[in-house]
């Protein structure tokens, strides 16, 4: 193998598994250390810079970082660090941060940007452009900002106060807001001569089963999940029947069933076509639903709505089983058993969401491609009409808040370049700082003596009380003591092992001391062969091998990044400081930086 190019910012970035997996590349270990130090406000600001909604995300994030977390890999029964819920700790314990928000220039730069939709994507664009002197004009059909964070995520998961606080940090920068305003024509919008238009309208249409027998007759008691959740959020709906069927296996289904339990649903069932394990909902969402006495029936395909005296009385389902072909492709094959009838008063349909761009005219230069989705560049978020940009669920279909934020940041970079007459493809490399952590022979700036404890569970409110009131938050959050203990589980993966070929005397001390056998000195070979010769099994090809140049004995140093604990023992043991532990801080380039 060729020597590893550690100057490439992506090499060490990838080693910080959580940060790499986070769409917004939040410097996770950095804020976790600040929580350990009790510096909650600083921890909050590190988050705010990257992900804009730490209080919201600390409760609701889809947390792609956690399955990626190294801690979950270092032993067979280990669980990842509770990265997401630690973010909430920063938000819960911070002081007033208004002083720390970026100043907004009184004198504007003369560029006006339209933001259509007031969800996390648009708000992120505003957050990045307002401090640069742009004028941002936001349109949303809802009465307040936040998009689906407000209309969809139920209050028992996300208190309104937390959401409004973080939405207002941005709106209070002086965003010109037109709430209650549905944009029905893109053409009219373009006629207003904005310098750029950002479309952050989400994926606002819930799927239906229009052709299922009985659908029409049952209409009074059949509700589209996201519409129903919005009407609950805006307090137009306050109750539901005692027996409820929720169709679907995603997170929307989980929110629907748990909301139904709070609005009078006593026998609420989730019925899903796929096997339990294949359900789209996050494992913790499923756990929370089950904990609220909601059974999940898998492998049931809806057949018909059953009507009696013109009124819905239940649904019939066909039982199926999942069969996988050689390529792992799944098909649901009927088992031939009797159809299953389930009685109900109401049905909530949470079977998917779609985009809807009926308000964008076909002839104005915005090209649409497959599935009626706009053609959007995945790096610049520019559409085929150069001054129109898309981001969030509107760009590539329903995702989540953190993706909307990440895309908002990138769209803001593009808009800023575009408005300055520069090529939107001409993006600056990420900011990287790398700093030795050495303080003494075996003292590091970071605390390498990590905790062996199992992952701490976030305490929950008493179930009976929580089920009585839609607005009681179920999760109570970690207290400071629990947060400290959980935070001490973090391995500090941003403390990178950096190897200096010319200093190494090949004494093997690092090889011998490494608790997880990461390091090997061996003859060089191609990667696949090299992986066979390492000290410990090396079968996680997702993780890189760090390879030195040729050393005096004609061997190379090979470090498998996979199970490195970032404990620093290699560097403590090295007599010549050929290893050093260096903190690597990777910052995504934001609009106006550099």
């Amino acid at each position, binding site marked *: 193998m060729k020597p590893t190019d550690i100057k490439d910012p992506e090499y060490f970035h990838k080693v910080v598994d959580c940060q790499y997996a986070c769409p917004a590349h939040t410097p996770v270990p950095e804020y976790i250390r600040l929580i350990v130090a009790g510096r909650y406000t600083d921890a909050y600001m590190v988050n705010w810079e990257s992900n804009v909604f730490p209080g919201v995300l600390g409760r609701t994030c889809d947390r792609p970082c956690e399955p990626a977390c190294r801690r979950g890999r270092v032993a067979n029964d280990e669980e990842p660090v509770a990265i997401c819920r630690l973010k909430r700790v920063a938000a819960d314990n911070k002081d007033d941060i208004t002083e720390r928000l970026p100043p907004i220039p009184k004198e504007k730069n003369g560029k006006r940007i339209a933001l259509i939709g007031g969800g996390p994507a648009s708000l992120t664009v505003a957050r990045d452009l307002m401090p640069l002197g742009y004028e941002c004009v936001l349109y949303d059909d809802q009465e307040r900002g936040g998009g689906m964070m407000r209309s969809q995520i139920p209050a028992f998961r996300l208190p309104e106060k937390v959401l409004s606080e973080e939405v207002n940090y941005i709106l209070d920068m002086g965003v010109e807001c037109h709430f209650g305003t549905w944009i029905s024509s893109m053409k009219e919008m373009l006629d207003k001569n904005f310098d750029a238009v950002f479309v952050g309208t989400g994926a606002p249409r819930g799927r239906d089963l229009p052709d299922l027998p009985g659908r029409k007759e049952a209409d009074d008691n059949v509700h589209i999940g996201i519409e129903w959740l919005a009407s609950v959020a805006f307090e137009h709906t306050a109750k539901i029947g005692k027996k409820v069927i929720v169709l679907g296996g995603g997170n929307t289904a989980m929110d629907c069933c748990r909301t139904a339990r709070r609005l009078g649903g006593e026998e609420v069932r989730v019925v899903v076509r796929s096997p339990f394990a294949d359900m789209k909902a996050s494992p913790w969402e499923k756990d929370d639903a089950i904990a609220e006495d909601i059974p999940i029936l898998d492998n049931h395909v809806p057949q018909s709505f059953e009507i009696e005296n013109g009124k819905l009385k239940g649904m019939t389902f066909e039982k199926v089983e999942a069969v996988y072909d050689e390529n792992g492709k799944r098909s649901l094959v009927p088992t031939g058993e009797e159809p299953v009838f389930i009685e109900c008063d109401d049905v909530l349909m949470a079977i998917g969401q779609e985009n809807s761009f009926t308000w964008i005219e076909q002839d104005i230069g915005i090209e649409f491609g497959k599935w009626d989705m706009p053609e959007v560049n995945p790096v610049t978020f520019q559409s085929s009409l150069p001054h129109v940009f898309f981001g969030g669920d509107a760009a590539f279909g329903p995702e989540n808040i953190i993706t909307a934020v990440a895309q908002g940041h990138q769209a803001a970079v593009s808009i800023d370049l575009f408005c300055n007459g520069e090529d939107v493809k001409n993006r600056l490399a990420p900011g990287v700082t790398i700093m030795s952590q050495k303080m003494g022979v*075996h003292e590091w700036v970071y605390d390498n003596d990590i905790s*062996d404890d199992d992952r701490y569970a976030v305490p929950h409110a008493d179930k009976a009380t929580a089920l009585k009131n839609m607005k009681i938050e179920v999760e109570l959050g970690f207290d400071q003591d629990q947060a400290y203990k959980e935070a001490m589980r973090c391995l500090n993966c941003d403390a990178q092992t950096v190897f200096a070929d010319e200093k190494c005397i090949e004494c093997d*001390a690092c090889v011998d001391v490494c608790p997880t056998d990461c390091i090997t000195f061996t003859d060089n070979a191609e990667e696949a062969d090299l992986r066979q010769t390492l000290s410990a099994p090396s079968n996680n090809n997702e993780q890189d091998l760090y390879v030195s140049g040729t050393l005096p004995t004609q061997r190379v140093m090979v470090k498998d990044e996979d199970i490195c604990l970032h404990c620093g023992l290699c560097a403590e*043991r090295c007599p*010549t400081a050929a290893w050093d532990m260096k903190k690597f801080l990777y910052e995504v380039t934001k609009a106006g930086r550099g």
Partner: protein
Amino acid sequence: MSYINPSFRHPNLPVNDIGCTKTDYEGAISTLCAGCGHDSISAAVVQACFEMSIEPHRVAKLSGIGCSSKTPAYFLNQSHGFNSVHGRMPSVATGANMANRDMIYIGVSGDGDTASIGMGQFVHVARRNLNMLYMVENNGCYGLTKGQDSATADIGSKAKGGVENVYAPIDLVNVALELGATFVARSFSGDKKQLVPLIQAALSHQGFAFIDVVSPCVTFNNNPGSTKAYDYVREHAEITGSVDFVPKKDEITADYEPGTSTNITLHDGSALQLHKLAKDFDPQDRRAATRALENAKDHGGILTGLIYIDPDTKDLHNILGTTETPLRDLDQDTLCPGNDALAAINESLR
């Protein structure tokens, strides 16, 4: 030294025949200087014992005094150990071995512990052919007492202080050969590929197995001008050949050109395959071994690898005709037959 020892290990570590991973053979975290050759030797012992599926409780670790003699604390935590006074490890090993012949004895000593204060003990344990592995972790100095020249330092070699050693060195390999040791090898802490199979062969050998392991002291004797420094040893090492240790349950599979390799079956049924570099070298010929040593020395080389082995020897128990049973397994009457028996013996000698 380091203070922390994380409890995580690689989750997919291989398991040996008795269900242990390498972790089960580890010791406490080392307090030696970073980069000390002795730590690599500890790691080699761990590797060797793991691969041989040795039950840790069957091992006794014995040592004297010195940085080297501290190392039994850093491997085989679950084994027995005795840290004796300076240079007296052989006596303690002899006593232990006489009392319980079923254990595996690993003696760890230093060049000071052996070639200075312990020289008298060393020569006798060698000539008695006590069944043990005797390793000298040879750094040419007294590391623990801050680097004074030891009796294995070469003439003209300079330690950190910069003063040339003026006394003729003792080559412990030569001494061991001279005294009739039945397994003699030399290796280098920085070459585990060679050291691990040598340790395994030594542990399988029924008799006195001596390995002189050159092991640089990074702090006091790893400077230019020292003949025990990493760079110097790498440049001057000359190997008798590469050694493969083949456990009893495996078949010899490596194929070498005829005449270049020798297979030696050991007492416990395992085998040693020596791939020789010098065609005329025969590790079962004591004179040839001495000659090879002298030849290397003539041009400043350090001969490493298996130097001599006599696989069919009588160890001290066999020489003395002691009981097959470890003393702890004998019942009180057999172990201590009483006054009448003693009187009978005395009578027979009158």
